[in-house]
């Protein structure tokens, strides 16, 4: 499903500000699992997530996603692969402020041949499922934190991805909203999707939903808990 083989990611290689963000990581996540990358900030969780999410290529090592080696793909194909198979929930939600909720959710479908009508219908179905249909024409800045996150989730699901990736999803949420988020993760899992979460929130990694935890420290994988 997702397999990393001796993956290393170096930023600014050969320059004084060189950083080894991920060092020699090998891991495997099976299909339908909920996996957690656990570690303090700066431990390389997010960088590893970008590699799994096909948003970047490793400096060395190989990454396989859905049986395809993505670590050597040219940028355009990597992008297309990400667009078709992966949904990303960002740490800061990364919603586009000037757009409405509906426009934010459909943004990933713009560079595809999806007709606007169909894109909107799909977005509305997702918003209904997340109890946000009544907010569809609100601007992002008019939303509460929990609503923003649900918009981000709807956007991550618009392409019906096999893999959902979330980076510190509960960082800006209170306990009850975090619980709500975990409920959504449960439903995603029930639909057979693989979920990968980077977090240091015990509420998340201690939840019984989680199948596997990878402990990260200084860019290296230091332990696996199943």
């Amino acid at each position, binding site marked *: 499903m997702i397999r990393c083989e001796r993956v290393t990611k170096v930023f600014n290689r050969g320059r004084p500000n060189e950083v080894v963000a991920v060092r020699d990581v090998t891991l495997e996540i099976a299909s339908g699992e909920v996996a957690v990358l656990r570690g303090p900030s700066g431990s390389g969780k997010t960088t590893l997530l970008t590699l799994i999410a096909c948003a970047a*290529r490793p*400096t*060395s090592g190989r990454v396989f996603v859905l049986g395809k080696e993505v*670590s050597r*793909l*040219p*940028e*355009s*194909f990597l992008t297309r692969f990400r667009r078709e198979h992966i949904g990303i929930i960002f740490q800061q939600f990364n919603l586009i402020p000037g757009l409405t909720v509906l426009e934010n959710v459909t943004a990933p479908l713009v560079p595809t041949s999806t007709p606007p009508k169909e894109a909107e219908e799909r977005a509305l179905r997702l918003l209904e499922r997340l109890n946000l249909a009544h907010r569809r024409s609100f601007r992002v800045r008019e939303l509460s934190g929990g609503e923003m996150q649900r918009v981000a989730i709807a956007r991550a699901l618009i392409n019906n991805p096999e893999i959902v990736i979330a980076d510190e999803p509960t960082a800006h949420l209170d306990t009850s909203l975090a619980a709500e988020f975990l409920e959504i993760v449960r439903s995603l899992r029930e639909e057979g999707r693989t979920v990968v979460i980077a977090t240091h929130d015990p509420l998340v990694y201690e939840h019984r939903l989680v199948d596997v935890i990878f402990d990260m420290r200084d860019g290296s994988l230091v332990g696996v808990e199943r």
Partner: protein
Amino acid sequence: MILNFWVLSQILGLVVVVLLGLYAALQGVRILLRWQPGSASEEQLELEKRSYLVSTLVQYALAFQVLSLLLFVVTADYLASFISGAMCAFGSLNSNDYGFRALWVKVAAIFAYSSWLMVNHIDSRAEDYPLVRPKYALLLLLLPLLLADIYLEVRFYTSIKADVITSCCGSALRSLENPYGFVAMSFPGEVAMALFFLTFTAALAALFLHLRTSRYALFSGFAALSAFLSSLLAMFTFLSPYFNVVLFGLPTQHRCPFEVLRQPLVGYPLYALLFAGGVSGLLVALAEFLKKKPSLRESAAQLQRSLARLSLLSLGGFLAVSVAFMLIFYAMVGTLFYH
């Protein structure tokens, strides 16, 4: 030497195209030298991004080149009023050695840029980018064409002497000093006509068969290109008078291929059809070669079909319009053959 707003803006446009081309070539050299297939290095990523820039630049160059070809003819037409003896674009292009050469280089450039863009388009649809090196080597080959274009055009404008009497149109028949015009104009009309209908029949039939059987691609491309060339010959010999008589009531000796542009609603679509048909026909043949690479086969075949369809429709359209004008001519004059 002639310098006015038309000439200046034409040169300005060309300078823009040359700058785009030079910049694209520079990027191309960089990609050519440093490209490492399968590498995940930051430099490779940078080069991949640059390849987008190059293809965009060449697309722009192509679009501007089409515009520049149009403006070149229009400018030549305008300049005719400053050159004694020249009555239209034909006369001014014929007034020195560079006019028609510049025109042909521009026409060739459109074919060359389109070919490169197609190779690029097909290549970028395969994950292994199999043609990166040949593609950017070819890009460098476009550069001389671009430089020849601006050189010839500038020479054309600087060599114009307003007082030289040029042979325009009808009188070029008698002139021995204007080889480019002369060759085309003195070409027997009957032969040109036979060639015209022969190549068009061949091209349309081959393209139709190609769409049916997906064979004969090379022949289709060759035939479509021949049809394009024979149409140009036709416009210099027997075909243009039909348009000129019907549209403007000019005498049949006036065999000027540019006159029809003075009626933009007929002229521009007419030449657009011809170029679309010729270029896409050539690309049908070119796609056949790309199909030989396993990773390109599918997308090349797909594009080949659309191109063949486009070529068939455009050439068919050009033929239909030409025949329609011949028939109107017949209705007006009472004969089809005026020779």
